[in-house]
């Protein structure tokens, strides 16, 4: 167990150090989210009506959740790369904890997610976002975001090990993640969606997570969203962590 913890931290540290050397990745975590905030706030925002909220208040929780979902792409791409370049073989020939490669990878996403969330919050505050709840509630919201981001990284870890190239990681990943984030309450009220999409959006975990953040940051209605967000996070880890570990074994045995 101690081995798992130290090895996980070593692998996570490796992934974070890598970021410094791959500035194009860092741009994905920093500049790109800011562009999206400005795009939605000033281009689309005027045309979207969000009863009870200013659009910027409404937008920030949604766009942070979307960014955190895409943050896991670092895991998917990184693992894919490690398999193709033979690094997984090296790790597996070392007397290290077997689970640490995946656990370290997903853990390092928490670091990048914290970074992109901070940048988005600062951008949001600059353009007019305000917390309307207590400090503790705001903190709880941040906790839920990081928990959900961590669990979603396991889904992307599975994806990264399943497909053969970084190009397919990107295309398959986009096809999976885009509808999940856009067909939710992240950018528009669910009630404004047409029949069919509306029902999908209501049960979409992204809606539940976004609504839980709106509750914790803006004092919106709860409807068990906070509990729902925690349960969904645990379910996603529970399903995709074993799947990812299985895919890791198979990928390494190729």
């Amino acid at each position, binding site marked *: 167990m101690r081995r798992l913890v130290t090895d996980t931290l*070593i692998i996570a540290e*490796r992934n974070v150090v890598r970021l410094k050397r791959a500035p194009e990745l860092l741009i994905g975590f920093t500049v790109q989210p800011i562009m999206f905030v400005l795009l939605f706030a000033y281009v689309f925002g005027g045309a979207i009506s969000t009863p009870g909220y200013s659009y910027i208040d409404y937008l920030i929780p949604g766009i942070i959740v979307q960014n955190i979902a895409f943050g896991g792409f670092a895991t998917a791409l990184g693992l894919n790369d490690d398999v193709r*370049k*033979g*690094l997984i*073989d090296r790790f597996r020939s*070392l*007397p290290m904890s077997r689970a640490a490669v995946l656990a370290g990878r997903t853990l390092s996403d928490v670091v990048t997610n914290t970074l992109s969330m901070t940048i988005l919050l600062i951008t949001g505050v600059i353009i007019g976002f305000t917390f309307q709840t207590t400090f503790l509630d705001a903190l709880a919201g941040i906790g839920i975001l990081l928990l959900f981001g961590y669990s979603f990284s396991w889904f992307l870890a599975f994806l990264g090990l399943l497909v053969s190239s970084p190009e397919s990681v990107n295309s398959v990943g986009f096809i999976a993640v885009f509808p999940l984030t856009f067909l939710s309450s992240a950018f528009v009220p669910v009630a404004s969606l047409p029949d069919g999409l509306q029902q999908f959006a209501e049960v979409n975990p992204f809606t539940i997570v976004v609504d839980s953040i709106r509750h914790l940051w803006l004092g919106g209605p709860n409807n068990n969203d906070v509990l729902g967000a925690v349960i969904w996070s645990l379910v996603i880890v529970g399903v995709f962590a074993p799947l990812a570990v299985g895919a890791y074994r198979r990928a390494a*045995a190729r």
Partner: protein
Amino acid sequence: MATTSDRPAIEVEGIVKHFGDVRALDGVDLVAPPGQVLGLLGPNGAGKTTLVRVLTTLLKADSGSARVLGLDVVHDAGALREQIGLAGQYAAVDENLTGLENLTMVGRLYGESRGQAKARGRELLERFDLVDASSKAAKTYSGGMRRRLDLAAALVARPPVLFLDEPTTGLDPRSRLSLWAMIEGLVAEGTTVLLTTQYLDEADRLADTIAVIDHGKLIAEGTPDQLKDRLGGERLEVRLDDGADTDAAVRALTAMSDEPPSCEDGLLKVSVRQRRGSIVEAVRRLSDVGVGVDDLALRRPTLDDVFLAFTGHAAEADNEDEEEAA
């Protein structure tokens, strides 16, 4: 570092591994004594890499057993990993980390402290002539530098047994020579090395024992000299001035050999009974019948000849050639 007991460093018994319908390993038995280099020689797809992956615990065999330093590759996998180093076909280094960061990470994953791992990393960078590049990201390294860093990573924990899977494939001649010298240095310190290669000169230079493997089967084993001797003795090779003289030359030289001389592409090959005096005798016999000689040489069989004789196809044949030969 070296094992002092007489126990073999590597023992392989009847290892079988299938990938779908393909028998990648078809009952291989192998023994490597400690402190020596065992060269595993075979064409692409012969099963060399599969065997290395079984021995380094990356892959489970379907049947058979294998031990490294007496540790079973399945039951004692954890303890075994403490004793081995692996440098694979790809230089398995993190391109976004520097040379020193790569080695430090590997050292820490072996359980060393950060300070210990860093000190060992510096020592290895010096040994492998990478000091100048130690704080540059590995993606800026040349192919030869990456292989050296990969080999250094395999040596972080001073493993008594080292597995090198085609360590010089794709390297330029100068990098190959320097890597060979480094491997020889390790062996001199007592490390046991299992080396796979498709280069005969590499096996000839580095290996104490060679195992020739093809289609997942061990087809010959011995020292380079033993393998060459099994092909018979010295061979005289004669290139004639005029190809039209071939028949006359064959008649003139037949008495020097137990087997009829062969002729391929204008090159006449005669297996001679004894080395001494055979060049002089051949020249005399040919000049007696008035045949002009362009070039004449006496040579021992090379491992290329060994390979051709045992596998029925040339050494670096790709798949198409193998099909033609089959």
